[in-house]
């Protein structure tokens, strides 16, 4: 669905990467690997049309992505390495806000299930700023389920998480893949998630 062709990006006359080719079909998981500063985040941002590439193009369903931006946005969930949950509100309120914003039809029992598997169910009424960093990170991943979109783009979803949670995430990715969804995520660490393609930056 997404096709990245010969993409190069320069920032202030400095080449970040050159001639990247990517193709993301349905049911595929792509892992971007590389060291810090190798341009993983930049590539993800370029796919989201936040950065103008110096050459090359990105296509969405065979058409230029730039021209069909909002259609593309309707099918994509992006999770940055920052935590977007509002720290002054409780976990429950945050989930409510997300459900409203993304007009999600997901049921409460489903969310409770996920909270239980992520071991967040005891914190539901606590404020987010009392949670640990790993826990807010997990909460962030809940957005994937709430938004319920075809394409997931994740920036460093695995950092600062314990093995158990990474297993849960791997399971979720597998589920999504079996539902014809596709995922791009970046990581600098090894994991046991089964990916269909690795791109090294």
């Amino acid at each position, binding site marked *: 669905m997404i096709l990245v062709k010969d993409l190069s990006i320069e920032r202030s006359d400095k080449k970040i990467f050159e001639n990247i080719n990517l193709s993301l079909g349905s049911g595929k998981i792509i892992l971007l690997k590389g060291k810090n500063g190798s341009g993983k985040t930049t590539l993800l941002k370029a796919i989201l049309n936040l950065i103008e590439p110096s050459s090359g193009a990105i296509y969405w369903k065979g058409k230029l992505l730039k021209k069909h931006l909002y259609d593309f946005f309707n099918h994509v969930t*992006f999770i*940055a390495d920052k*935590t*977007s949950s*509002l720290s002054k509100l409780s976990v429950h*309120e945050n989930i409510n806000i997300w459900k409203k*914003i993304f*007009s999600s039809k997901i049921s409460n029992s489903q969310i409770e299930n996920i909270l239980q598997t992520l071991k967040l169910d005891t914190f539901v009424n606590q404020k987010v700023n009392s949670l640990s960093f790993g826990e807010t990170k997990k909460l962030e991943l809940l957005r994937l389920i709430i938004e319920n979109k075809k394409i997931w783009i994740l920036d460093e979803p695995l950092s600062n998480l314990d093995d158990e949670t990474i297993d849960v995430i791997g399971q979720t990715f597998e589920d999504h893949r079996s539902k014809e969804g596709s995922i791009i995520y970046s990581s600098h660490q090894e994991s046991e998630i089964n990916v269909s393609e690795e791109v090294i930056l």
Partner: protein
Amino acid sequence: MIILNKIISFYYREYKLNLSGFQDILTNIIFFFVSIFIFIFSIGPDKEKISVLGVGIVWTLLLLSSTLSLRKFYQDDFDNGNLLIMHLNGFSFGFIAILKTFSHFLFVQVPFLISIPIACVLLNISNDKLIYLFFSFVVGSFILSCLGSISSSMNLMNQRNFLLGSVIVMIFSVPIIIFSIGIINMEENFNSLISILFGILLIVFAINPWASGLCLKLSIENN
């Protein structure tokens, strides 16, 4: 219909956010009143003098206290990535700017509107002047919100000089002060003065989505 839903949920989020940070808004208003007290004490017990200076004092303090909250206009949402989420959720940056401006007006400026009558009692401003002050502030505060949006979006990536944003708002609000004070001092010209203020409002409102949107986009691109 979808877009309407999204706008409603945007304001639901803003409402929740501002409710949780209600003490911040309250602090702004307390700042406003404490400054009024200080003015009253520093001028002395001369009631005549206070009522002459009153309108100017109210306007200056309103301007100052509404620039206090500027730093939070976009900064929090920018830092935790919510601006980007809003954009990916289907709002263009210009549209985010418009929505945010209205939100700032609703949650920061409207509380001041409520506190103006009390300030007028403290400063011996007569009731007939209060109406004009109120009108000019409704229009003027919206201009301040638009200017605040422009200046705080410009200063998102400015890590060193926070005060610059306030200076930008204040320098562009000089005409607002001139015309607002004009309304209060020359009541017979009310119609033409309020339409000048309204004209400024239209200009700033039309520029706002372009300037703020571009700055937001820039900052998110380069963050």
